């Protein structure tokens, strides 16, 4: 009798352990996602300053600046699905990279102290954003391992937990906005 009771107790402990592990990892993924969100918001806050400080110099890039402002407005308006958010932000990243390359042609702008400060902030936000994506991917990897590996996969199935997709970080995005070159420093 004691053996049976002991066995049941042990089984219960194992089940609780697996359940808590899965919940812990799911929460870690959500927490990491919230981290990305925070960084995105910091970037949204910088965009109006950026547009404002460069528009008088970069008249030839008016189209790009308008596009960035539109994308930002879309991103902060809310009501976007996760996939749409990712798409909008990818486009913001791409457009901003293009803009930073174009800055090369405006020496006056490059020399402006305000702009340099803004670029530093932007660089920091981009790096923090990349760090939060990497943190998200690391927590998704842990979560997916738990969801797919035996024996936690049995538990995960019954809890309805599904595999999550990692952020794909394209090669271009792995590099920082190359302000180093703009400041005449080694990247």
């Amino acid at each position, binding site marked *: 009798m004691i053996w049976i009771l002991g066995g049941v107790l042990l089984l219960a402990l194992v089940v609780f352990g697996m359940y808590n592990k899965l919940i812990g990892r799911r929460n870690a993924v959500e927490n990491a996602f919230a981290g990305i969100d925070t960084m995105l918001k910091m970037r949204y806050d910088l965009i109006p300053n950026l547009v404002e400080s460069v528009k008088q110099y970069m008249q030839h890039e008016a189209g790009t600046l308008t596009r960035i402002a539109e994308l930002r407005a879309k991103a902060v308006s809310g009501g976007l699905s996760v996939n749409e958010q990712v798409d909008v932000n990818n486009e913001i990243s791409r457009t901003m990279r293009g803009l930073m390359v174009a800055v090369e042609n405006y020496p006056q702008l490059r020399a402006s102290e305000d702009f340099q400060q803004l670029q530093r902030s932007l660089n920091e936000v981009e790096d923090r954003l990349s760090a939060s994506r990497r943190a998200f991917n*690391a927590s998704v990897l842990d979560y997916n391992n738990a969801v797919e590996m035996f024996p936690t996969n049995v538990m995960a199935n019954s809890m309805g937990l599904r595999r999550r997709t990692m952020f794909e970080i394209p090669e271009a995005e792995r590099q920082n906005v190359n302000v180093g070159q703009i400041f005449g420093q080694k990247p």
Partner: protein
Amino acid sequence: MKTAVEFEQFYQTSLRPLLEEMEAIRKKTLSKVILIGVIALVLALLSYLGFTVTGNKGNGMYILMFLCLASGVGGYSLIVGRYKTDFKSKLIGPMISFYDPGLSYDPASSITEAEFSSSGVFRHSADRYSGHDLVEGTLGKTAVRFSEVEAEYSTETRDSKGNRETKWHTIFKGLFFIGDFNKKFSGATYVLPDTAQRLFGSVGQAMQSLGASHGQLVKMEDPEFERAFVVYSTDQIEARYILSSALMRRILDFKNMNNRAMHVGFASSCVYVALELSNEMFAPKLFSTLLNPAVMQGYWNDLNLATGIVEDLNLNTRIWTKQ
């Protein structure tokens, strides 16, 4: 910072005359040391013989012999101490000023115990702490301070007779470097040598998260880096912000190039690098000639090892909000 060619010129024009002067002092010091050693030994022997002949062998004889030898050792330390000070102020000081006028050198000072312990790189509190050869100043845009340090803790054991025995264990012995880091951060992140994963694979990795006295375990994407190091941090995102893919590569390259155990910490806006050394960095040579060019080359390499951290970890790149 200077190149090897510039150092060669400096060696020929400035160091060579100083070395010749110092070589004469070294020879004199060596003769004094030998003389003191011989006198101490002869006196000890004479006291032994004296007591033996008069048949008074006892504690008195041992005390006298001990006093003779102890004065020999005392005299040796005094003479060698003076030689060391002379050597460092005449040769190492000018070499460091030549390397970068922005650096200052104080052979008697070191990274303080407070700085060492507040870095959090080593968690064991030290019962005995010492250090020397402090170099500080600015290299490019980066403020640096480094010195040799030795931190130890003691344990006490009792044998079967109840005698207490104190044993000293090294926490860290080597070069301790503090540099102003180029990014702003608020938490603490540590990159430590990964012995568990190297020896026990994935089981070792599981063990790392259990013994995480430095914070949460952070699993990085670079497998080679992960095999060499284990990362702990107070913040998963901040750890990755500090340890960009490029910086991970640089730390790994630095470790492979120098092939020494290396601990790196990021806290209080600074980067701390602790590099184990088997030999003292700027230890003067007493028993071999100073005129061999390899001698100064060795000190030059030691200096480059420490200052190279700035270049190798790219600390002078200031493209973030911290300038």
